[in-house]
């Protein structure tokens, strides 16, 4: 009787393993796709979005002056600089607006997906990662270049650059787990077809097996099958 109960319990764990929404992927001891990991990213990205939009409004001359508590009129010099003007010719819109769209993308791709999207929708995590990490680093480099080439500093630009770096730090864990999982699937199957399917979140038994070894359950509730929130 007891044996049967234990066996039943084990099979419940096995069965629910692939549906556990709070499963912890390697190499962390928390779930990087959890809401409490992602929501702060979205909030921070939206703050940067509003700051960048404000600077864009100045570049469009929809506001008359750009606020700067430290560097005075240097912000306006940066925003009206030749570099910025050149970028506007390429992007068609002021460069700050381009940045604002990128920050909005961070928030959108941060919000989309379940708490196990590193496995269920890897493409989404990768797009999110591309938006946050390389684009974030490029924007930081641009801001630093502004200071050294244009010779003026812009307080709000620096704030968004700092936010970009914080976003990179906050987002890399999830992207890393996702890449590790994809690499493991590749190493164990060596099949382009399975890789392709895994990337787009299509199910294969091979990738399921890899995922099973890749995760562990949070300690406090090993058997709880959490209901996903809509």
């Amino acid at each position: 009787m007891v044996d049967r109960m234990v066996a039943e319990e084990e099979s419940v764990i096995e069965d629910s393993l692939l549906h556990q929404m709070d499963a912890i992927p390697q190499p962390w001891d928390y779930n990087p796709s959890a809401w409490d990991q992602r929501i702060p990213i979205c909030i921070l990205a939206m703050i940067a979005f509003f700051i960048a939009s404000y600077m864009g409004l100045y570049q469009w001359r929809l506001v008359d002056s750009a606020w700067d508590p430290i560097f005075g009129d240097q912000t306006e010099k940066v925003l009206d600089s030749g570099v910025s003007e050149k970028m506007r010719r390429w992007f068609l819109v002021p460069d700050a607006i381009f940045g604002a769209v990128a920050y909005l993308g961070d928030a959108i791709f941060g919000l989309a997906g379940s708490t196990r999207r590193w496995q269920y929708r890897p493409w989404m995590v990768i797009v999110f990662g591309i938006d946050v990490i390389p684009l974030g680093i490029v924007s930081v480099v641009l801001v630093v270049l502004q200071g050294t080439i244009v010779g003026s500093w812009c307080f709000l630009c620096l704030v968004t650059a700092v936010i970009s770096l914080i976003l990179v730090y906050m987002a890399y864990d999830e992207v890393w787990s996702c890449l590790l999982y994809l690499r493991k699937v590749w190493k164990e199957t060596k099949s382009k077809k399975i890789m392709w399917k895994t990337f787009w979140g299509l199910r294969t038994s091979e990738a399921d097996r890899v995922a099973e070894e890749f995760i562990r359950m949070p300690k406090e509730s090993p058997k709880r099958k959490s209901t996903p929130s809509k």
Partner: protein
Amino acid sequence: MWSRVVEMMLGLWLLMSPFIFRYDDSQTMIWASDYACGSAVIVFSLLSYVQSCRKIHLMNIAIGFWLVGFAYYLGFGDAPPAAQNSLILGMVLLMFAVIPSEASVPAPRWR
């Protein structure tokens, strides 16, 4: 379904754009692009609510590319407001169009 709702708002913005940015009556191409794209986005997003064509919102990706391309066609260099509007709408639409309708839960095959 939040991404579908936002797409519909973007579609409405496209329909309002000729009046917000005061397009000239002679700018037929811009009127046509904004009206065609705006209505198509709204139709595709609404159709995504029908189970049998729930992935049709992916068509909005094509519209996003069109809007970006059309912006560059309209003006390289000193872009008029209509082109800037088209570019921004195109980029934002591209981001929303790839988001699945039931984004917060796993796809059906994982449930």
